């Protein structure tokens, strides 16, 4: 009796979501596909050029540079942020209860700050020889001052550092919530067997945190591919010296608004999408295999 009712009603609940999805995701996606098949005309509707934009992309060394940079940025962020956040979350668990919220909050503050502001702070922090990082952490240890935003070897690390500063607190917060969700009995059982905090962490905490780890990894991968604001503000919309800080989003922004190459920019977005999809499917597949 209620099956007829239940059959139509769910669609009504889904309607707003899928209407907006169609209007603001599917249409731009198809529009991007179409755009990538037309010539780069700023003045009017260009002509159909087939796959020419894609072929041009294959010859574009800057595209591959941007792709490499983005992959490196994402990978470096992952391998820095996840262990660091894990360490901090565990340390926060072990600290005095009263100190936990204020300390967590200090770590979270960069995550509550718009990346444009973080980048501005970074401009001043990294600013040449007088920069905070050089004065505080590089020179006192006897290293030569680093010109973070000019030296091509250090531009990408500077961007990663900024990402680490921004996200570590939030990921720590997620890990803390995940740790709080682990049943106490599991810890008690493990503590009967061993006195080593390290082994309890390794045998109970880490395996139980797997879903949160997966979520964080997916989040950071998506964010890595979408990173724009920091690089845009830090490098003034360019790729930096020798394009060392050129990322995919900033390159397609540049292609569109500096060079008017709509078609090339669209071809770039379209080519990157399957790559990202593949990476995320890999992430999910790893989880799927473990649980099934």
């Amino acid at each position, binding site marked *: 009796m209620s099956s007829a*009712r*239940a*059959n139509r*009603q*769910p669609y*009504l*609940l*889904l309607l*707003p*979501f*899928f209407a*907006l*999805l169609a*209007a*603001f995701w599917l249409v*731009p996606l198809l*529009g*991007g596909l179409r755009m990538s098949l037309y010539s780069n005309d700023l003045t009017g509707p260009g002509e159909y050029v087939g796959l020419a934009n894609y072929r041009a992309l294959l010859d574009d060394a800057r595209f591959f540079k941007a792709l490499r940079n983005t992959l490196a940025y994402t990978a470096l962020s992952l391998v820095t942020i996840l262990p660091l956040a894990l*360490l*901090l979350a*565990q*340390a926060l668990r*072990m600290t*005095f209860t009263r100190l936990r*919220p204020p*300390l967590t*909050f*200090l770590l979270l*503050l960069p995550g*509550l*700050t*718009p*990346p*444009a*502001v973080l980048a*501005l*702070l970074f*401009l001043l*922090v990294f600013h040449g020889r*007088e920069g905070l990082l050089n*004065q*505080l952490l590089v020179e006192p240890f006897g290293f030569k001052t680093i010109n973070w935003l000019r030296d091509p070897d250090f531009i990408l690390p500077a961007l990663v550092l900024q990402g680490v500063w921004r996200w570590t607190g939030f990921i720590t917060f997620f890990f803390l*919530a*995940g740790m*709080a*969700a682990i*049943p106490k009995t599991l*810890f*008690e059982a493990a*503590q009967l067997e061993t006195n080593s905090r390290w082994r*309890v962490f390794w045998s109970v905490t880490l395996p139980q945190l797997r879903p*949160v780890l997966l979520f964080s990894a997916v989040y950071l991968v*998506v964010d890595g591919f*979408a990173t724009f*604001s920091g690089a845009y503000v830090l490098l003034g919309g360019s790729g930096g010296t020798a394009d060392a800080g050129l990322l995919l989003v900033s390159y*397609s922004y540049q292609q569109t608004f500096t060079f008017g190459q*709509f078609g090339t920019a*669209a071809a770039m*977005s379209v080519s990157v999408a399957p790559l*990202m999809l593949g990476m995320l499917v890999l992430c999910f597949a790893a989880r799927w295999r473990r649980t099934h």
Partner: protein
Amino acid sequence: MSAPHTLYRPPHRRPSVLATLCVAVAGVLFFYPFLWMFLSAFKDNREIFKPLQLLPRAFDPQYYRQLFNGEWIPFFQVFTNSLVVAVLQSAGVVVVTSMAGYAFARNRFAGRGLLFILALVVIMMPQQALAIALFSWLNTLGLVNQLAGVILPGLVSGLGLLYFTQVFRQVPDDLVNAARLAGASEFRVYLTLLPLVSSALLSFGLIQFILAWHEHLIPLLVLSSAEKQTLPIALAGLYGSSLRFPYAVLMAASSLILLPTVVLFALLYRRFQSALSELLAH
């Protein structure tokens, strides 16, 4: 067996001074630039470029005054724009995704799996990757240089769908069945369940508020006139706009831009953490 169990004092319960020190050092490193920023709102340009000099010579609020006077950017206008975008977008996302999440979690219908996968694909495409095509589509719709052009595309979140599907799955079956037996429509059942999941709604709203407050690329593309811009765009535009521009104004604005997200987060901290732990405990 019970005697050793109760006598046993797990070493983990004792707070560790070393761990506290580690976090405190990290906390100071993360926080120092902000402290410097708050204090730099009172410095002239010569003082600002000495990051080790923490304190200004005097606490003269002249740079805050310049900011509020609208000498550099229409601050209150831009702040209001940001607030309108963030509030409407976060409220909208919560309504749209929680409705869809309820439908996926609590109903069986044809095409359910396919629609869910379609939605998942959405998460994987960051909007930034579609930005150029999105911009030209918004141009066709006449939404360029309108706040609606920023808000509307932000109303769909694949992550939100996943989150609320999980949240509504965890609501006890009895409650759903009771509401259905009373003859309520599915929409009514959804409405009845909302108070039960209020922490989840607020938490996700908070995340969306933060993301909308921070968004740079889409507003940069869509909003061209100075009166329509959002805060991050206006601030990024100020930087390097002129040589005699006092950076302290930028620091003052940057300090104020933190207020809404920090206050909201502080207010919702506990609810956010418990909502998250509850979700993960299942």
